[in-house]
């Protein structure tokens, strides 16, 4: 939580964002995470053009082979190139991570902002609902949704997004509530600015920090959730593939062909690593209270 009064003290001419960027640049782990993420995103976007082999390309006679010059990460039991599979799987995993987080972000920010801004009874009722939903067993709920409505990608986005927005709503509401009572917002009111301008110029920019931090930390938990569901066989369905599903296959044959488990595992763990480090770095950078000592 950012104490809001600290936003105002920009007398030296560096804004919160400039400060944050300077702090973030000093955090080597966060920078490594950021670079790795950019690299992964570019790879995923370009997969259809740069993947070394075709996605469905099989070579049943060859079967599973360990890493070699032709197949850097080896091949699976159908002779499919693992690097290619991991790249395509990464597309799905990252896409689920980003889209489901975006769904959670949209619901959470709007819900929290409305509750915080309107206040009073509406706020109390809206937050009571959040409390109730918090008490629900999420994991079970998602499994239930997947079982009842079949396993498709769109539903997966929705289901994950629908349970991940709660914390976001709480964070945004808290921010908005405390902002509403600040002098500079009152000043804007007395200047006769419209509600919309106040929201856009003062409320939104000041809630952005915590929202960004929480978003970076939501993406890995969403990706983990997708991988978890796919691992149980309740998430992504073949012929589509994701890292969770690849790990699931890898486990089945890990005694004979351990690389089928290890490489998708490394891909998933590295991505989660990168996102968590970036999120931690952003939290340190965007929270004015933590001046690096």
């Amino acid at each position, binding site marked *: 939580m950012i104490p809001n009064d600290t936003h105002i003290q920009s007398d030296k001419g560096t804004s919160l964002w400039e400060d944050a960027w300077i702090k973030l640049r000093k955090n080597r782990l966060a920078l490594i995470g950021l670079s790795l993420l950019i690299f992964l995103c570019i790879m995923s976007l370009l997969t259809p053009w740069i993947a070394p082999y075709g996605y469905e390309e099989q070579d049943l006679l060859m079967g599973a082979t360990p890493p070699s010059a032709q197949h850097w990460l080896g091949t699976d039991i159908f002779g499919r190139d693992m690097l290619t599979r991991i790249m395509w799987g990464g597309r799905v995993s990252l896409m689920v991570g980003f889209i489901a987080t975006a769904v959670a972000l949209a619901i959470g920010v709007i819900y929290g902002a409305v509750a915080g801004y309107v206040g009073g009874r509406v706020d109390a009722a809206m937050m009571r609902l959040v409390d*109730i939903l918090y*008490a629900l*067993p999420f994991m*079970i709920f998602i499994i239930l949704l997947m079982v009842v409505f079949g396993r498709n990608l769109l539903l997966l986005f929705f289901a994950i997004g629908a349970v991940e927005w709660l914390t976001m709503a709480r964070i945004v509401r808290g921010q908005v509530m405390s902002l509403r009572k600040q002098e500079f917002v009152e000043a804007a009111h007395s200047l006769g600015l419209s509600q919309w301008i106040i929201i856009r110029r003062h409320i939104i920019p000041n809630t952005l920090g915590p929202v960004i931090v929480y978003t970076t930390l939501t993406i890995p938990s969403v990706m983990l959730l997708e991988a978890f569901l796919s691992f149980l066989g309740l998430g992504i369905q073949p012929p589509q593939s994701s890292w969770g599903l690849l790990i699931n296959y890898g486990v089945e044959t890990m005694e004979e062909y351990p690389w089928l488990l290890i490489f998708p595992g490394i891909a998933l763990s590295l991505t989660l690593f990168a996102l968590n480090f970036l999120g931690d770095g952003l939290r340190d950078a965007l929270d004015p209270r933590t001046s690096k000592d």
Partner: protein
Amino acid sequence: MFKFALGRLLQAVPVLLVVITMTFMLVHSAPGGPFSADKAVPAEVLEALEAQYNLNQPLWQQYFSYLGDVVQGDMGPSFKYPGRSVNELILSGLGTTAELGLYAMLVAIFIGIIAGVTASMRPNTIQDYVPMTAAMIGICMPSFLLGPLLVLVFGIHLEWLPVSGWDQIPGDKVLPAITLGTGYAAYIARLSRGGMLEVLSQDYIRTARAKGLSEFLIIGKHALRGGLIPVVAFLGPAFAGLLGGSFVVETIFQIPGLGRFYVQAAFNRDYTMILGTTVFFATLIILFNLLSDMLAIWINPKLRQQVRGNA
């Protein structure tokens, strides 16, 4: 304290009602009945089956009769295991899952607190970086990856420990407990480090130092109690999350616990079983959250006063 607990328990009632209602509606809005998977059942048989499970009644009637049964603690019969009630199935899995969860939590608390406290004693030194990097790895390594890797190394290559099963070979509980506990150990390490750092900068710790107390006494007697408050607050949700974790671990190690039952019920579309387990899990989670809140109040004198002030 008693008033607080009672108030929270009363609050739990509407939450549980929402859980039951939502799950019931979801399950009943699922396309295809529970018996539609069976091939070509004669119409009379289907009718008899539906009558046996009250499926021929209007939905609202089914809902209220289910609600009445649940209030009396009866979750109804299982669809897929004829002749066995959901209660029996839950009970038979519960012991195993509870045991697994307990071991995992012991692993998590023991390793996590030691790592976190060690790190907090010399912040930003190697003594801090090593356990905290390990904790980060623990957080980023999902249990469905860690478990198989542990099996691969300790079960298959070194052959030190059994690769699966529960209560059959001595030592078969070690790998599941570690697999389930590691992620929590990592969180607890981070939380206890943060909590300890905050406490160690307080005046009363300086006083203790000024009195010339040994570092061991300062940490053990004065700092731990305050420093572990975040950990205690985490334990309730952690136990709840443990249930989710047990899905994976029980599947990997083929442990006949609740988590595996639930996943199987989900695959088999055993609706009464799904419904029953969901309600059961929700109740457990609410209870755990209540317990951890009460523990937090008991540990933290500031909160204790607040509760007294409010009640």
